[in-house]
């Protein structure tokens, strides 16, 4: 869907009966839902009727993002990559998080393999209220032997419900891996100019997506055109422009060219999500820690340029945590500023004498304040400012004395601490008088910037007895 499509363009293609069957009262409302990707065309029962077939296909095509979405895997753990509309996240948002995949290979010791697969599958961490985890496992055929590969794929499959990528340039090897993965919709890596015909057949027979791998864009166009002419569907292709860990300039150039081809030119043979392989860093790095460090760093440059999926070799959490966090950050929707729940949070190990700090619930503000309170035992209460900063919230009546007075009551500040003092951000000083009058609590006006909290507390805390 090009950036400039509006609800009117979509509305024109809907039945216009305002029947409400889709769950939205009017067709115009449904059009907006479709544009915002909160609904699907088939939610409208009328569109599914035979006489509307052409309109339905046209509308689906109109709503398809420039980078076609591709689903990898089946079932609950399936994930979608691509589906992007913009080069830069500030233009709208980046939609589908870059997928983070870890490899295993068919020459690994079996116990080691199972342990690694379980670790990848079980890893999760909560950050800013979201679960960070990996997305899938890439099984490489190091042996290039079909039966060895088959056995390995089977073992991996038995130990994970994550989607898989089958990696070999030998169609026969891929085929034997597919034989034990009925209905799992793995991603096939990779079709090249030499083997695309056989790999395409495998993709078609097994209804699974495939990667086209080449460092030559013309070659990619040729393979994807031929594969689609043969019958591979447009939701079955992923492009790998090759990750050269040394010459990242060329790697980046290919990445940018391909994204522009899809997003700005909507050039059909290249409207597909892109796969990056930072694992290539291990080809020439001897030292394990150095390789993991460089691999991770390379992926950082790819994530910044909007890659859609990544395959890593490292299983060191210190090297995988940064990409997990970076993608969480960059895939936050800039149109809806991230916010935290307005509740009394504990930092460190606070007790009845600890200070209570007030701030806004704009995630950036909150986490900055929390970071500046590192090492101090205290409570922080983020007022629901609808995700705006303190200054804007005070100016826009989103941070008010009423909200704070209510919070003192509702969050039972009295039950938490023995003192009766809250600390307001310097930029909310104007609210202090009213809060004192309405709540009976003392208000300290703290620093304007939370980096001054430590100093402020060491000068002013605990409060002196009157």
């Amino acid at each position, binding site marked *: 869907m090009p950036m400039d499509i509006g609800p009117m363009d979509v509305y024109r293609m809907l039945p216009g009966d305002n029947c409400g069957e889709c769950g939205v009262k009017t067709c115009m409302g449904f059009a907006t839902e479709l544009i915002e990707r909160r609904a699907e065309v088939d939610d409208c029962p009328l569109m599914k009727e035979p006489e509307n077939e052409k309109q339905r296909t046209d509308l689906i095509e109109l709503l398809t993002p420039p980078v076609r979405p591709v689903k990898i895997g089946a079932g609950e753990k399936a994930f979608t990559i691509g589906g992007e509309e913009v080069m830069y996240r500030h233009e709208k948002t980046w939609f589908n998080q870059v997928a983070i995949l870890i490899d295993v290979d068919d020459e690994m010791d079996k116990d080691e393999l199972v342990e690694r697969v379980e670790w990848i599958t079980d890893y999760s961490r909560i950050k800013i209220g979201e679960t960070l985890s990996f997305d899938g496992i890439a099984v490489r*055929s190091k042996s290039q032997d079909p039966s060895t590969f088959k056995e390995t794929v089977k073992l991996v499959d038995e130990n994970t419900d994550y989607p898989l990528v089958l990696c070999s340039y030998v169609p026969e090897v891929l085929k034997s891996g597919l034989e034990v993965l009925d209905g799992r919709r793995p991603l096939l890596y990779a079709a090249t100019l030499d083997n695309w015909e056989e790999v395409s057949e495998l993709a078609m027979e097994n209804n699974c997506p495939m990667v086209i791998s080449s460092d030559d864009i013309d070659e990619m166009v040729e393979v994807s055109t031929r594969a689609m002419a043969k019958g591979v569907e447009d939701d079955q292709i992923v492009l790998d422009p090759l990750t050269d860990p040394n010459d990242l300039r060329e790697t980046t150039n290919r990445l940018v060219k391909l994204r522009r081809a899809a997003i700005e030119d909507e050039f059909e043979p290249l409207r597909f999500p892109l796969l990056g392989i930072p694992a290539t860093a291990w080809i020439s790095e001897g030292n394990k820690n150095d390789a993991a460090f460089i691999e991770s760093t390379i992926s950082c440059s790819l994530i*910044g340029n909007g890659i859609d999926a990544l395959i890593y070799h490292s299983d060191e959490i210190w090297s995988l945590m940064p990409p997990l966090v970076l993608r969480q950050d960059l895939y936050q929707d*800039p149109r809806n500023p991230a916010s935290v729940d307005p509740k009394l949070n504990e930092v460190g190990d606070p007790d009845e004498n600890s200070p209570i700090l007030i701030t806004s619930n704009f995630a950036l503000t909150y986490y900055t304040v929390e970071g500046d309170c590192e090492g101090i035992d205290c409570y922080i209460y983020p007022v629901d400012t609808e995700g705006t900063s303190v200054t804007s919230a005070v100016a826009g009546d989103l941070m008010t004395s009423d909200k704070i007075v209510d919070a003192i009551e509702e969050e039972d500040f009295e039950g938490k601490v023995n003192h009766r003092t809250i600390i307001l951000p310097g930029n909310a000083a104007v609210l202090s008088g009213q809060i004192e009058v309405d709540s009976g609590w003392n208000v300290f006006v703290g620093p304007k910037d939370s980096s001054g909290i430590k100093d402020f507390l060491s000068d002013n805390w605990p409060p002196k007895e009157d």
Partner: protein
Amino acid sequence: MKLYDKDKIKKVLQEALESIQSIDLEEDEIVLEGVDLEAKGDLEFEISQKAVSQVFPQITEAEEVEIEEYEPVIKEMDNQIQEVKIGATSSEGGTRKETVTLGGEKYLPFYPDGDNPHNPVVTFDTFDREEPLPSVISKHYEDVIGRPSEWAKKSVDEYGAKMVTLHLTSTDPKGEDTSPKEAAKTVEEVLEVVDVPLVIGGSGNPDKDPKVLEAAAEAAEGERCLLASATLDLDWKTIADAALEYNHNVLAWTTIDINLQKELNRRLMNYGVDRDRIVMDPTTAGLGYGIEYSFSVLQRIRISGLKGDEELDFPISNGVTNAWGAREAWMGAEIPKEKYGEDWGPREFRGPLWEVFTGLTMIMAGSDMLMALHPRAVMVLKEMVKRLSGEMDELPYPQKWVTSV
């Protein structure tokens, strides 16, 4: 194309068809494998595509896929980012051995559109007091902490720093409260000991910083340092005056807000600060702590600058050291296990990698200069700039990752 009797060709082909194993179509040639046409009496022939489609309609149809050509977009931007030179050599009225030029970009970083004249640079942070640093960093500087000139020298000699940032944090009125005059002496000492360009920072105290930077600027007269920082909420005019009077540059620092950045830049320009003396710091939020805001503000600033916004077309500096505020960076391995039941791995790698991610993400968004701290982080950042700017030879056949990793 030789002409043969139609019937004769037909007959030959009919016979030949029976022995065909496979057919390859290449250009306008047909290769019939397994067919020995020569045996039919010295027959050599070429067949046009048209003829082929008449004889084998079903085959040619499938093979005739039109491959559309793709011409990648190459974008020329309207504007070039202002160049700002940090440091002055003896011929330029200073004593630096070399200078560093920031800015000058015509394109987004490492884009296919073209080469930018200067790569992003990394400047090493040093402090004039016993800065409380995470132990994973301080252990590299144990021998020099609290002795700024030795620290600066170590950064240059041991870690190859091309630029050094001297933070005069001891001037903080809430700390040691070193006087501007004493701070200026430190600046002189550092300039004496190292010959790379210098960035001079205050303590972040809005009342005192202008006085400190003014004294520092005077002590460093002619050296074209970068004074950090002028902000909207302090007496930036004093800093601007000092830069103009003693030949320095000004770092214009705002807090992740493109409009405030425009305003500060505009004020500096209107006040008379030359365009080639302004560097911007739109604030660096670390990885996991709002980096997306910095990323997008940087990208918007750089794109606006390249499109011709003359209030935003200045080089960008980022304080990457902020990454160390994240507990994921500094916390020892045992704490997350105890506290959150998680293994985060050794901080010897985790910490610097956190700093690298923060820095590299800024570079990808358009940064020209990173202020960084951990020696390993700085080393890797420099290395990545090399790889990203194509200074490293390509790796032959990266496809082999499938079998040889």
